[in-house]
């Protein structure tokens, strides 16, 4: 069994060349662990321009070999061209399993690659384990209200991994060897291509990647009061999220919405400020490792999922929490 991990780079977002995203290490580490359990081998695949030089870094995450498709034309993401390159590499190295992060790029690529390879797809997995010589994947359904175990029966198999759930491992081990693979890309392979990237909120981590998230709800009363949420997020180095009520009211952009029709997040810490905890909100955040709720209604459903709750006025508690954290973290 040969497993290939798609190592995503932050290409296009960083001005100074490519860097691996954390999800690349998560995919690499999961692939190498699975290969260990199955008695197979794992490799990584990197695509883009200027990526050959960073390939060896994946050695630290369990990869002995990294396949690189390095091409000027791939400097910007193209679903059609990237999928062609990936499927070509999978076929030419005879890989059986392809692992992507369930990132914006991974979710865009995986179904396309699966269709090319006639491979079954298990999306947004939260666990992968070897069973009976094959892979058993666990994934949430119904917005996390259920879990299913899925088996893929086709010879080739594609998985995407929910970000922040799989450990990236701790980097150790020797640099990976890099092997370039040339893929014949024509203009007609670029019928879909990225022509620009705009970064929303520089300085704050993105919701789906953040380790800590502070979200605000309708109880804050108005957009100007999000300053208490932002103040807390700043001390914690956290991303800022919002409930749908807040987004629908136009207080925050849609990008910030957490929940069934917004983003699904699984940070280490989720702080819900003045959010009632409607089922559609919980759907997006209940898999967070620790949940803190601050709400003046002791019966608010958010307390059912919160590890730690304070019943009280957000305008009193949040600034106090911010100032005590500042002290505790020596940021004063």
């Amino acid at each position, binding site marked *: 069994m040969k497993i290939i991990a798609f190592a995503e780079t932050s290409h*296009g977002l960083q001005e100074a060349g490519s860097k691996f995203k954390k999800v690349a290490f998560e995919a690499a580490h999961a692939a190498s662990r699975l290969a260990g359990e199955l008695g197979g081998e794992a490799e990584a695949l990197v695509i883009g321009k200027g990526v050959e030089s960073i390939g060896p870094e994946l050695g630290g995450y369990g990869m002995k070999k990294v396949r690189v498709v390095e091409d000027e034309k791939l400097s910007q993401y193209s679903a059609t061209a990237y999928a062609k390159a990936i499927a070509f590499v999978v076929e030419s190295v005879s890989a059986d399993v392809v692992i992507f992060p369930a990132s914006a790029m991974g979710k865009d690529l995986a179904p396309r690659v699966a269709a090319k390879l006639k491979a*079954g797809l298990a999306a947004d997995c939260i666990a992968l384990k070897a069973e009976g010589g094959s892979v058993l994947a666990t994934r949430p359904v119904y917005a996390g209200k259920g879990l299913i175990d899925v088996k893929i029966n086709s010879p080739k198999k594609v998985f995407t991994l929910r970000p922040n759930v799989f450990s990236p491992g701790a980097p150790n081990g020797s640099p990976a060897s890099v092997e370039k693979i040339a893929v014949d890309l024509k203009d007609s392979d670029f019928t879909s291509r*990225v*022509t620009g990237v705009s970064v929303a909120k520089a300085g704050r981590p993105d919701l789906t990647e953040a380790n800590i998230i502070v979200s605000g709800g309708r109880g804050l009363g108005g957009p100007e009061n999000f300053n208490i949420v932002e103040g807390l997020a700043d001390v*914690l180095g956290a991303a800022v999220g919002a409930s749908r009520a807040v987004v629908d009211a136009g207080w925050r952009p849609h*990008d910030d919405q957490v929940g069934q029709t917004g983003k699904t997040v699984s940070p280490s810490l989720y702080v819900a400020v003045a959010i009632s905890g409607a089922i559609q909100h919980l759907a997006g955040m209940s898999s967070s490792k620790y*949940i803190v709720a601050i709400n003046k209604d002791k019966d608010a459903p958010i307390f059912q999922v919160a590890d730690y709750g304070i019943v009280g006025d957000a305008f009193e508690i949040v600034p106090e929490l911010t100032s005590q954290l500042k002290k*505790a973290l020596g940021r004063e």
Partner: protein
Amino acid sequence: MKLFVCVNQVPDTETKVKVGQDGKTIDRSEINLILNPYDEFAIEAALQLKDKNSGEVTYVSVGGDSHKEVIRKALAMGGDKGIHIKTDNAGDSYSVAMMLAAALKDTGADIIFFGKQSIDYDDSAVGTMVAEMLGLPSASVVVKLDVDVSSKKAVCEREIEGGKETVELTLPCVITAQKGLNDPRYPSLKGIMAAKSKPIQEITPSGAESLTEVVAMRKPPAKQPGKILGTDKSAVPELVKLLHEEAKII
């Protein structure tokens, strides 16, 4: 323009998940089925293009008899006709995508719209799979769309981590719609009446296969309701301590 929208039927967002007798699927006995919420953005996008450039909007749905309801709901919003690919066993995303691709193959579609994901299995797969099966370019999770009919180009914005990406596509193409793309219209009374006489063609699929198999379904482990630390700001030091010592986050 020839516009198609693939629409799915799903349990509504309030659904309490109970595992069915087979231990693999949801207990469907008390479920309220709705048009998949993301598909409403796809429908609206198609209708706006039709309003602007004239043409025809066709809805396609794969599933059992009840799927006619979502086609009717879509037709009540606007558009011209429906295709119901009738099967009681739609199978996995790959299987659904194969049936849709077979039905859409020689239709001369300019744009095929999908929702970004079905809110039952949350796969986010069918649209992009259909694109690949038909050899078409695609953009997923689209929040902004501009189509230039004369140059046969679509310029989209899609959500990515920490920002947005502009994607250029050549027509014909596939778009999967995300919330934010537009504000879906409500069916008017006139629309609901008109939908009753719009044609829905029923076709029988052949040759689709599922490549995946659900072995078991269960509820996620229930979270223990946590500790209420207090009812005013005197609880804050305790919270800071727990975040440090128990959660080890700070």
